């Protein structure tokens, strides 16, 4: 006998279920199940994984959802095993989310019984598209739990009236203590009620665990769900909500019928369960169109004839004269033939349409990803990159052998992403488009916080512990306690507690490990847009996204390909917005319009800047690691940038490709090619295998396989179980093609060690374009470029470091001024006439720099500018008193102070605002006459301001700025520590390059970046960058340095460190730290 579980929650029922769909399907299969349902709470989040896992285990999938019905409790809704059934389920789930929102204070999803009834009834009145199971959490079940039999029967009759044959009673016992909720008696009462009302009963186990051992995890989730601790939260009665095997379920059926007075026996209950399961069996391909690509109809984008013909026409138009080059012509025909075979012409036309929409909005747009490998993509104007010029291979993107759907990514200005999304919805119709979602899963810090909350630990203690945790998998917490120096103190505390008989920290570690990777909440994916045909919303449930007014699918990135959804990645890239802002500022101030696609790609000032490693703010090459690599690599050409970007990736770095390449580049090691046939392939990287494209060509050349097959082999290199087969094939075929054993051995060694870790050159080329563009702008228009960076903060560094960089470049940073600052960072012509060699433009700090100012206040200030007095600001811009005071404190009101006094009167001004604010609060506000202009009276209020208080000192000014704004714009935060620093004998960043290698130094600064990149050795190295006001100090902490520094490694903001100078290239120097302190600790 088998048993089908009809009510199963996976971990996608967030803060409820504990097992992944894959675990559940595997367990069901192991117990001999023929079918398995997944019915997550409020959604189908795990549906695609469930279908895939069931297919893998030879189990038939059933799908449903556990939904709240307004006023009637929670019920299990199961889809009938048909396309109509699945569609009704998707629509019902979407309906339950109508009226919710993606923000924190959203009402819980629920639907009315009337709405549910609409989806239940099919086209024919007799057939049900959905079945509704009334279990322990339904109104019927709640009444039965309270032994209110009559109420239970009345409730059930109402359900029958509303939904007819679709209604089932769901019997559940978790074998709770006699008489309690989820006890066998509870189920027996339900059975009696069902019999009285002539409603069929089915048995489920309301599963939320794969095995009983997961129950402690579920307890923690129960507590966290209600933001409470284990002592006070309502918890599950015990650990019995697990996926029990058939014999145990049969026994449960027997126990229920034994206790019940009903005439129904166990066999009848189990038969009814099996019959309902049979009616719900889904055929994913037929009922969910699982696996078939869903593309917008060609007619939507205005194509009347065949999509193939249209695509050809547009490509030919796009390529124009270049078609006469035989190579171009051949490549186009090759790509078009593959696209036609796969039926993807409509997809390419759709992406082209989207790219046109974006450029039509005047938004910067750049293609990214392997799609850049396609000449068709280039010809359609989606990507400016000519794949032939860089040796990019179409098969890396799409081939007859590639079973995945094509994926073209577009980078757009981040600030305008939502505008683009709305345009796409408008253009294709809301029924064909939805955003994609993503599940945020527990990681170490979140897991620790929630485990701590469940244990009832004080919030401050949890916060302190969470701050020490640095990027390791939560499930390895206990291991990390032993190996990570920053956790040493915690480990000691844990041992001390254990000795004294307390266990809270031990439990904290265990529970944190248990939460690892469980989904926490769903969010809008940062870039995925799903495009389909008019049936899209029949195939995916949707709910409100974080983008106002637009829905998102309940499915995520990994669901797209197996299910056959086509997604377009439209990624908001802040660098594109920064570049756009820069270009606008150049045009606004000089009238010059720059076409970045037309700039010289061998520009000397640009490469000089890159080689100087002063690349802060440049796309992709600003991190400490990249600056070091750029310093060693010394790029001369655009191709060098491509190599640089490819090398600075986890794969190539982890596989140790960097060193051999650099050794050969600087001629410390001779360049050798193992075989003349490989020379043209490996020439561009001096014989080192770096690019995926090179691996493809090597396979192709040495075995005679096609490029499509070669890409399959390349992907196989990272799948452990395929390597042996690939090696056999490679050795046999290469020998057949006349390669010597020695060459085969060596090349295979390189392929195996490097092949799966390399980087796709197409990606690197796509990255290199904005890298070069940003460097070009920094070299030629530094002020406008820095304004763009300030405005959109695109990189890894905080604004305060970018301001320091502007200062270093000699660009005047103009302080916030209520009469001149706006909501944006703008260039402003300096009032003093510049002398030769001095800049004519400064950057005016934006009002947004003030931490607590509101968008409405900024709008009012912008609208009413200029102001002639403090009173004028108060009357017309009506800022909140706190904002006005903050403006005074940071000097934004200095211009109203008597000529020449400036900041020396700031304290008086602040005191006056505070005093007069209090007086005003006591009086009724003066009547405002609409349209009345403020009289340009002399500012008597300010001119008569009594001079009482001394002006702020330099350090006061800076600490005020640090407190009220995001940046220390008038000086450097380091000056707050002057006394401490003067005594320390520091070496500043600007002097580090002059130090000899091995010299001992002491450095200090504010932390601006922390990184732990993958290392060849596998050992963790922590890189911390400090800004000391003269530049960046890059610190590296190896084992000893980490151990000596301990807990503050990842927590201290102001750091002082000792170490030795390590020179790694002509412009590259790091300090290998032996220990570091928290400067705020020392000063205390």
């Amino acid at each position, binding site marked *: 006998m088998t048993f089908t579980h009809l009510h199963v929650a996976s971990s996608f029922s967030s803060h409820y279920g504990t097992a992944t769909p894959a675990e559940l399907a595997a367990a069901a299969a192991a117990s001999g199940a023929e079918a398995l349902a997944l019915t997550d709470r409020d959604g189908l989040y795990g549906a695609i994984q469930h279908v895939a896992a069931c297919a893998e285990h030879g189990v038939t999938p059933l799908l449903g959802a556990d939904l709240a019905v307004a006023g009637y409790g929670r019920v299990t809704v199961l889809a009938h095993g048909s396309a109509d059934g699945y569609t009704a389920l998707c629509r019902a789930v979407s309906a339950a989310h109508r009226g919710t929102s993606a923000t924190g204070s959203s009402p819980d999803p629920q639907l009315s019984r009337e709405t549910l009834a609409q989806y239940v009834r099919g086209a024919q009145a007799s057939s049900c598209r959905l079945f509704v199971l009334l279990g322990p959490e339904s109104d019927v079940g709640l009444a039965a739990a309270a*032994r209110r*039999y009559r109420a239970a029967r009345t409730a059930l009759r109402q359900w029958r009236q509303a939904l007819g044959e679709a209604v089932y009673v769901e019997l559940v016992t*978790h*074998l*709770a*203590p*006699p*008489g309690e909720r989820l*006890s*066998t*008696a509870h189920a*027996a*009462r339900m059975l*009696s009620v069902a019999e009285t009302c002539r409603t069929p009963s089915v048995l489920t186990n309301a599963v939320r665990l794969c095995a*009983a*051992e997961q*129950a*402690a*995890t579920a*307890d923690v989730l129960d507590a966290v769900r209600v933001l409470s601790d*284990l*002592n006070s939260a309502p*918890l599950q*009665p*015990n*650990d*019995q909500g697990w996926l029990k095997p058939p014999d145990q379920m049969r*026994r449960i059926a027997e126990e229920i019928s*034994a*206790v*019940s*007075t009903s005439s129904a026996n166990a066999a009848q209950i189990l038969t009814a369960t099996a019959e309902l399961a049979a009616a719900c069996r889904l055929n994913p391909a037929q009922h969910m169109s699982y696996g078939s690509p869903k593309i917008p109809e060609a007619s939507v984008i205005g194509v009347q004839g065949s999509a193939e013909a249209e695509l050809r026409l547009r490509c030919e138009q796009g390529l124009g004269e270049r078609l006469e080059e035989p190579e171009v012509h051949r490549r186009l025909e090759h790509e078009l033939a593959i696209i036609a075979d796969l039926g993807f012409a409509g997809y390419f036309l759709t992406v082209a349409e989207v790219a046109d929409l974006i450029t039509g909005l005047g938004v910067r747009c750049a293609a990214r990803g392997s799609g850049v490998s396609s000449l068709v993509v280039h010809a359609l104007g989606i990507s400016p990159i000519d794949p032939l010029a860089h040796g990019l291979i179409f098969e890396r993107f799409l081939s007859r052998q590639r079973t995945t759907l094509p994926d073209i990514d577009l980078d757009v200005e981040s600030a305008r992403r939502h505008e683009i999304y709305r345009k796409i919805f408008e253009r294709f119709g809301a029924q064909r488009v939805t955003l994609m979602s993503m599940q945020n899963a527990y990681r170490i810090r979140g897991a620790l916080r929630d485990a701590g909350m*469940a*244990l009832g630990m004080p919030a401050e203690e949890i916060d302190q512990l969470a701050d020490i945790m640095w990027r390791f998998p939560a499930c390895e917490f206990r291991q990390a306690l032993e190996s990570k120096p920053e956790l040493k103190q915690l480990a000691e505390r844990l041992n001390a507690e*254990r000795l004294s008989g307390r*266990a809270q920290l*031990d*439990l904290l570690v*265990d*529970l944190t*490990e*248990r939460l690892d990777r469980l989904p926490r909440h769903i969010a809008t994916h940062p870039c995925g847009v799903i495009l389909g045909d008019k049936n899209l919303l029949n195939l995916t449930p949707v709910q409100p996204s974080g983008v106002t007014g637009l829905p998102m699918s309940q499915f995520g990135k990994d669901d797209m390909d197996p299910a056959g959804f086509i997604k377009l990645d439209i990624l908001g890239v802040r660098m594109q917005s920064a570049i756009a802002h820069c270009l606008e500022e150049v045009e606004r101030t000089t009238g010059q319009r720059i076409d970045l696609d037309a700039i010289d790609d061998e520009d000397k000032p640009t490469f000089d800047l890159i080689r100087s490693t002063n690349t802060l703010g440049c796309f992709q090459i600003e991190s400490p690691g990249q600056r070091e690599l750029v310093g060693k690599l010394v790029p001369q050409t655009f191709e060098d940038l491509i190599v640089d970007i490819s090398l600075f990736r986890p794969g190539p770095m982890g596989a140790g490709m960097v060193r051999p390449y650099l050794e050969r580049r600087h001629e410390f090691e001779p360049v050798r090619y193992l075989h003349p046939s490989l020379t043209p392939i490996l020439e561009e990287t001096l014989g080192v295998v770096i690019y995926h494209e090179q691996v493809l060509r090597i396979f192709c050349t040495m075995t005679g396989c096609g490029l499509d097959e070669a890409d399959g082999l390349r992907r196989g290199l990272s799948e452990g179980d395929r390597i042996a087969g690939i090696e056999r094939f490679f050795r046999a075929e290469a020998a057949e093609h006349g390669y010597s054993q020695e060459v085969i051995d060596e090349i295979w060694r390189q392929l195996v060690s490097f092949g799966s870790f390399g980087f796709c050159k197409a990606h690197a080329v796509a990255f290199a374009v904005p890298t070069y563009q940003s460097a070009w702008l920094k070299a030629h228009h530094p002020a406008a470029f820095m304004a763009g960076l300030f405005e959109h903060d695109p990189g890894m560094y905080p604004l305060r470091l970018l301001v320091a960089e502007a200062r270093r470049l000699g660009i005047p940073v103009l302080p916030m001024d209520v009469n001149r600052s706006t909501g944006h960072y703008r260039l402003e012509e300096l009032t003093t006439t510049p002398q030769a060699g001095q800049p004519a433009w400064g950057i005016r700090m934006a009002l947004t720099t003030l931490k607590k100012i509101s968008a409405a206040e900024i709008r009012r200030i912008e609208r009413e500018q200029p102001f002639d007095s403090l009173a004028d600001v108060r009357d017309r811009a009506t800022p909140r008193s706190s904002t006005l005071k903050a403006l005074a404190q940071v000097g934004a009101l200095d211009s109203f102070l008597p000529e020449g006094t400036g900041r020396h009167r700031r304290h008086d001004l602040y005191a006056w605002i505070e005093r007069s604010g209090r007086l005003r609060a006591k009086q009724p506000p003066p009547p405002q006459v609409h349209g009345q202009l403020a009289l340009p009276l002399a500012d008597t209020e300010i001119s008569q301001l009594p001079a009482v208080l001394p002006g702020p000192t330099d350090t006061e000014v800076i600490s005020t700025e640090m407190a009220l704004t995001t940046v220390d714009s008038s000086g450097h935060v380091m000056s707050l520590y002057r006394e401490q620093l003067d005594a320390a004998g520091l070496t500043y960043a600007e002097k580090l390059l002059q130090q000899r290698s091995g010299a001992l130094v002491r450095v200090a600064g504010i932390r601006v970046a922390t990184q732990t990149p993958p290392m060849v050795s596998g050992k963790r190295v922590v890189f911390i960058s400090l800004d000391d006001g003269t530049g960046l100090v890059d610190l590296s902490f190896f084992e000893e340095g980490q151990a000596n520094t301990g807990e503050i490694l990842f927590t201290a903001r102001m750091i002082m460190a000792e170490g030795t100078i390590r020179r790694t290239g002509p412009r590259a120097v790091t300090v290998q730290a032996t220990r570091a302190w928290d400067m705020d600790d020392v000063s205390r």
Partner: protein
Amino acid sequence: MTLTAGLTEAVEVVTDDHGCPVHLWWQNRGYDVVAEPVRWFARRRWWIEEARAERGRAGLVAQEIWRIQIQDPQTASRSTVDVGRSLPADRWRLLRIHEVPAEPEEVE
């Protein structure tokens, strides 16, 4: 009336293939289990009672409890007792002795 929890003591229980008690050894005397036993799983406050809660630990959250009627084969006197099974060690303890045999709930 039941004994307080503090007075639990170790017993030996013989079970059938389904884990259902059929025989009980208590203070060196053997008892037969008569009548249909009732079982349930009772929650444990494991975060207070236990020092560890690592993944995979069995019997952390709940304890299996059987309410059984036992008969002394020599005297034929019957009593109702609750016995609990503890995992992972798989040990049994006598939890309560009922003076008045508890009747199962009548379901209307």
